């Protein structure tokens, strides 16, 4: 048991040769392949990392877009709510105006109906009153009342204005005088009436003055003179008609 120098040297050479051969046939290829695989894994890892970062960036972008859309949606919703509120207020205002107009129309119709009813009541009341007075007048009317009516007629003739007197004179000259009485005019009363006209017109007509006479019981009492378009006189019926018109016109004047 010892060391053989030749074998020692040979083994040193053998080891160096084996080192060179394994380096060429084993270590270099296997290290190259492992390095390539590591590089490939590193590349894939980098690519995956990059893809992950891109995905995160995309996710961040999508999140931002979603937030923007959400903000837009909220703004749009608020705007729609505001428009809806404005539209509702507008419709409410229109409805209020329509209701107010309807209420105004109703009030006007009510007032109109009330006025019509009041007019009807007043007309009916006037008619009833006039009818009652008319019946009273008819019962009170007599020859004496007729005579006093003629006196009133004579005073009204004296109160005529110049134009009316001229018209009366013209009608007298044309023979267009017509006396209407409630009772049958006696000669005495006819002469009294003609004398009153004659007294008004003066001496020009003298004894030539002529007039027609007729009876109208509807006058109740009194006398009227129609001379062309002129009409003058005093009758109970005219008084009642004035009273009825005046009664009916009370509400209108107010």
């Amino acid at each position: 048991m010892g060391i053989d120098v030749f074998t020692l040297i040979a083994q040193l050479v053998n080891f160096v040769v084996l080192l060179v051969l394994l380096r060429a046939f084993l270590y270099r290829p296997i290290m190259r392949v492992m390095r390539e695989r590591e590089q490939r894994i590193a590349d894939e890892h980098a690519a995956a990392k990059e893809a992950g970062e891109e995905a995160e960036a995309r996710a961040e972008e999508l999140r931002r877009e979603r937030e923007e859309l959400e903000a837009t949606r909220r703004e749009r919703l608020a705007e729609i709510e505001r428009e809806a509120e404005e539209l509702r207020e507008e419709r409410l205002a229109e409805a209020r105006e329509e209701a107010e107009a309807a209420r105004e129309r109703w009030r006007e119709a009510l007032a109109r109906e009330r006025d019509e009813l009041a007019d009807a009541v007043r007309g009916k009341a006037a008619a009833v009153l006039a009818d009652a007075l008319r019946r009273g007048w008819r019962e009170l009317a007599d020859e004496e009342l007729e005579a006093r009516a003629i006196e009133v007629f004579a005073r009204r003739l004296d109160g005529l204005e110049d134009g009316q007197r001229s018209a009366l004179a013209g009608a007298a000259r044309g023979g267009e005088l017509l006396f209407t009485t409630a009772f049958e005019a006696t000669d005495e009363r006819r002469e009294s009436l003609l004398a009153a006209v004659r007294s008004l017109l003066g001496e020009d007509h003298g004894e030539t003055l002529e007039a027609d006479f007729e009876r109208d019981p509807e006058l109740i009492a009194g006398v009227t003179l129609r001379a062309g378009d002129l009409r003058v006189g005093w009758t109970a019926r005219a008084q009642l008609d004035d009273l009825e018109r005046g009664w009916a016109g009370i509400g209108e004047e107010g």
Partner: protein
Amino acid sequence: MTLSPDTIAVFAIGPWTINATLAFSWLIMALLVIVSWWVTRSLTASGDIGRGQNVLEALVAFLLDQIREVTNQDPKPYLPFVGTLFLFIFTSNVLSVVPGFQPPTGSLTTTAALAACVFVAVPVFGIAKLGLKEYLGNYLRPSPFLLPFTLIGELSRTLALAVRLFGNVMSGSVIAAILLSVVPLFFPIVMQVFGLLIGVIQAYIFAILAIVYIASGTELQERRVRAEEVPQ
């Protein structure tokens, strides 16, 4: 009974007699090169790799991890040297179970040659990494008076490296041979398996010690250089 394959002459080439140590060493070398060529001829960097490539990559990754753990450095420069040591010793020891095979590591000459390789590799890697001046200065630290002891330490650990491997492998072979002659049936098989385990462990120990020695010539100096650079 022969204790060393150096004494077994196999054939002669001219004036040189080729003993079993050299013959089986060449056999191991041829086997390793052929297997390496056969496995690496169809290497692929894709994810789908063959079984041989898978085993080879696992072995290389194991060696790289071991070197990295010991040196705390990039293991790639040391892989061919340490890997070759491990593969040669491992193959030699594993094939010792084959009847008729004389493991070269059972020769003190072979283990001495491997230890000498480590002895040379330590300054080679140290000078390559630190430079000649810095590496040689390491022998004078912490005191020039310790230079003889440092040299004795270098030689003694190299000698220990050679004798340890030789002793373990040779003793296993001797014990197996003795038991084979005394108890020829069951017990020698157990001892062969035990010897196989011892052989694998010794291959690992030899490679680890080699990288430890190499690291002592590079890492420690590097640590000292870094410590000196700190005040700057």
